[in-house]
């Protein structure tokens, strides 16, 4: 029999030290974003034959590994993808809605004001101030329509710029992931790659939120990342995305459909914004047609028929008032025009309730446009709230599996401390036995 027990307890002390150090690392990172708790895997060392049988030779530290569940990661990333998309869309639709003004200051209110001024003018068709009021109200409607449309177009430009920024962020993160891939492959041979893996997982989370990516595990701990079947990162190889001026994004292998925040911007650019601007364009055309044809049906003070009042040929963004002088307004219904004939002024005022372009009155068309924007904004808000709850559930599930619980770590710490103390006690027992043998044997009768 040898005193292999000293070595056995030495392995126990080393294992306990490794466990205590890992616990210390866990506690230190208890609040670190994206940190995965680590644990020490122990294994008993092989036995050797000794006097009386096979005696074990202690404990080995097999591995210090992360408690990570990739299924939970995939689920959380799928929710992050949608969350990013809904957050952006909710914010953009909310902003778009404010372009239409508050309920008591929208375009429909300006239009209502125009009709009131027209009716007032029809009471006093001869008076210049009432004509001036009509011109002012017309200008107000045109300016509101233009400002709203220009505001929406500015949002479109801002979204394209945001997409460019986000794409360059994506490219930066793709580079970082490829670099980490190489480091992880290199580290998996010697030493731990745990914290590199954490860093890479954080980047993949960010990418999911920004662009919505798919992760496929590769060899030796490397991963492949793709979007819509097009590869962004393959081990150490990267492909960069390019943002185009129209808000689309292309991959070297062709156009790519993105999710996440970029997808949210793109959906706003391709679906929400065009329909808003198109309905404003339709409104501008209907407004101009109705007023121009009614003004042409009347006669001006000099006996000539009324000319065009509005020009909608350039769409709502370039909606302009052509009439500049009070005499451009045709008040009279008959020719030669009598001084107090306000028949056409009254007809212009009665456009308030007239069906224009087969889509109801102008006022109700404006109301419908504003309500439609409100409905989209409210829907986007509901979508976002629902998605927040889903994302929260997924991230809680992930945090529950991956995160650090201080109580648990404290309990572990005590366990490891005790096992270290016990191993030390065994070692001193061995030491004492050895001392007895060395100092006390062979001295009988001395």
């Amino acid at each position, binding site marked *: 029999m040898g005193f292999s027990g000293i070595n056995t307890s030495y392995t126990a002390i080393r294992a306990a030290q490794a466990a205590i150090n890992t616990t210390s690392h866990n506690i230190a990172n208890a609040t670190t974003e994206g940190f995965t708790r680590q644990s020490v895997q122990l294994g008993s060392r092989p036995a050797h034959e000794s006097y009386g049988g096979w005696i074990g030779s202690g404990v080995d530290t097999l591995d210090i590994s992360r408690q990570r569940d990739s299924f939970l990661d995939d689920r959380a990333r799928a929710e992050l993808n949608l969350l990013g998309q809904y957050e952006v869309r909710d914010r953009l639709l909310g902003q778009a809605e404010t372009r239409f003004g508050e309920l008591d200051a929208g375009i429909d209110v300006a239009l*209502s004001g125009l009709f009131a001024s027209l009716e*007032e003018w029809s*009471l006093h068709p001869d008076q210049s101030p009432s004509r001036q009021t009509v011109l002012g109200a017309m200008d107000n409607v045109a300016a509101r329509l233009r400002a709203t449309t220009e505001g929406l177009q500015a949002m479109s430009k801002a979204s394209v710029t945001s997409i460019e920024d986000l794409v360059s962020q994506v490219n930066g993160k793709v580079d970082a992931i490829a670099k980490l891939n190489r480091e992880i492959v290199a580290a998996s041979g010697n030493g731990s790659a745990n914290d590199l893996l954490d860093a890479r997982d954080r980047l993949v989370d960010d990418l999911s939120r920004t662009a919505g990516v798919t992760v496929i595990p590769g060899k030796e701990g490397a991963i492949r990342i793709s979007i819509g079947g097009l590869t962004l990162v393959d081990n150490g190889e990267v492909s960069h995305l390019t943002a185009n001026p129209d808000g689309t994004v292309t991959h070297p292998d062709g156009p790519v459909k993105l999710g996440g925040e970029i997808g949210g911007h793109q959906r706003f650019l391709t679906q929400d914004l065009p329909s808003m601007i198109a309905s404003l364009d339709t409104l501008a055309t209907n407004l101009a047609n109705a007023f121009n044809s009614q003004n042409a049906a009347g006669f001006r003070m000099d006996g000539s028929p009324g000319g065009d009042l509005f020009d909608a040929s350039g769409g709502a963004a370039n909606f302009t008032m052509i009439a500049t002088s009070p005499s451009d307004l045709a008040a009279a219904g008959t020719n030669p025009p009598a001084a107090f004939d306000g028949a056409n002024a009254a007809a212009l005022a009665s456009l308030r309730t007239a069906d224009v372009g087969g889509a109801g009155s102008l006022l*109700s068309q404006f109301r419908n446009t504003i*309500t439609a924007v409100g409905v989209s*904004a409210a829907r986007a808000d509901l979508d976002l709230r629902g998605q927040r709850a889903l994302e929260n559930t997924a991230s809680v599930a992930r945090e529950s599996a991956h995160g650090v619980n201080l109580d648990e770590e404290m309990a572990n710490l005590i366990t490891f401390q005790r096992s270290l103390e016990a191993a030390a006690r065994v070692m001193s027992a061995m030491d004492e036995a050895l001392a007895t043998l060395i100092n006390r044997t062979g001295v009988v009768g001395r």
Partner: protein
Amino acid sequence: MRITNRMLVDQSLSRLQTSQSALARQQERISSGRDIRRASDDPSGASRIMSLQADLRAREQESRNSEDADTVLSLSDTALQSIVSRMHRARDLVVAGASEQQNGSRPAMATELAGIRDEIAQVANQRHDGRPLFAGFADADAVAKVAGTWTYGGDAGAITRRVGPTDIVQVNVTAADAFGFNAGADLFTLLDDVEAAMTANDQTALSNALTSIDAALSRIGDAQASIGAAANRVESSQIRNLDAQLALRTELSLVQDTDMASAVMELQLQEMSYEATLSALGRSLPTSLVAFLR
């Protein structure tokens, strides 16, 4: 479920944020006094608000139209009334002039008839706000003697006012209708003729003229009746309109305004839940096994 320390913090923070945004929403409701400020707050309610606002604006304009109509109609009525009383005086003079006893006073009566005629012409040309009452759309005297003939200077323009959503009322009568120009027997020529008969002591012509004077009076009566009928329509429209405005304002307030009692109650509930979340956070965060191990 395994609970980690980070989870505790994150969850509490997200609950605090939810609680705070609910609090902010209630505060906005109370300070603005509006339940719906943007269409997305309540799209169907917002659509209703916009429609009610437009209706209210239209009713207010109709109310102004009614006031304008009322002024014109009552001025026309007063003018016609004074013309009728002048015509009655003229008729009295003609009756007197046709009688034998008045042989000496016919010249004076002729002078008075000329005065009455000029007076009626003046009233017929009365203007309101620069605009003749009885000349249709025209900016001209309704009646004038041109080259020795009495003529109507206006046109057939029917001045209308919209006093209700679909209620359009004509607020003028033309001198052509009221004073007989259209019937080919205007009362000014009639008064000229009577004055001439008076000067010429033509008793027969005077007694024959009575029928024409009665016909002229009845034409003015017709005009007064149509003015009166229009005034009645305007008045009843105005009453309906004011009722409608009240109803619209009430509904608008119901849809749009914050119910203060419920909003304040809601605010207090939110405050309570916010404070409760805060105190829960304060209690749960510091406790850990760390504090109990020595």
